[in-house]
């Protein structure tokens, strides 16, 4: 599942995941994505989420997906800030991708 409020970077992310042979569901809003994840949690292998612009605090999103649902989350951030990265890992991110995402 890919979550990103920026439609341009979301499109690129989708294409990359598909190229890696993943089936992809996409959401620009984290709240919608969460609803789907909660209902269909066994259908999703991983979640790739942008840190900003997803209508919910990304760290809260991370915590919920990681602790409640146990699905690995990879976070995509435009910021190279070490603090941002550390916080994300602390809240359960399995990995961080720097935006713009490369395949």
């Amino acid at each position, binding site marked *: 599942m890919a979550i990103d*409020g*920026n*439609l*341009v*970077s979301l*499109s*690129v992310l989708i*294409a*990359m995941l*598909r*190229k890696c042979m993943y089936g992809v569901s996409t959401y620009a809003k984290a709240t919608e994505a969460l609803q789907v994840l909660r209902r269909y949690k066994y259908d999703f292998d991983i979640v790739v989420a942008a840190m*900003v*612009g997803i209508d919910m605090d990304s760290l809260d999103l991370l915590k919920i997906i990681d602790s409640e649902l146990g699905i690995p989350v990879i976070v995509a951030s*435009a910021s190279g800030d070490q603090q941002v990265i550390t916080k994300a890992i602390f809240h359960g991110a399995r990995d961080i991708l720097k*935006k*713009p995402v*490369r*395949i």
Partner: protein
Amino acid sequence: MERNNQLHRQVALMRQSLFDQGYLDEQFVQLEELQDDTNPNFVEEVVTLYYRDSARLVASIEQALDNRPLDFNRLDSYMHQFKGSSSSIGGRKVKAECSQFREYCRTGNGEGCIRTFQQVKREYATLRKKLEAYFQLARQAGPRDTASRST
């Protein structure tokens, strides 16, 4: 046959100059690599999406710049989006101007923001024009063997 080869050469040269002159960076190559038989018009589709997204953001920023006092958080948030989408398609110069704008937001420099926004718009317009010309020429030239590319 010869004319077609010539067109392909022109397309290649045009593409190379976009990189050489700093309008595009390696992210654009990433987009090209994602284009294949299952996704034959990917690059142009994403760029078109970028134009639509940008039009919306530019209008929002313009409106926000008309308000007094300036809401730097809001301006920064819009520009963060604009920078994000510009960098997703490899728009190097646009991205740089966006960064400058955000720097002025950070320091609360209203004049700087207004001035830099003109640069952002100018670079965006230039990039758009060049990309439109590029895609048009590429369409004229038609499909080609994409085995080798270099920037």
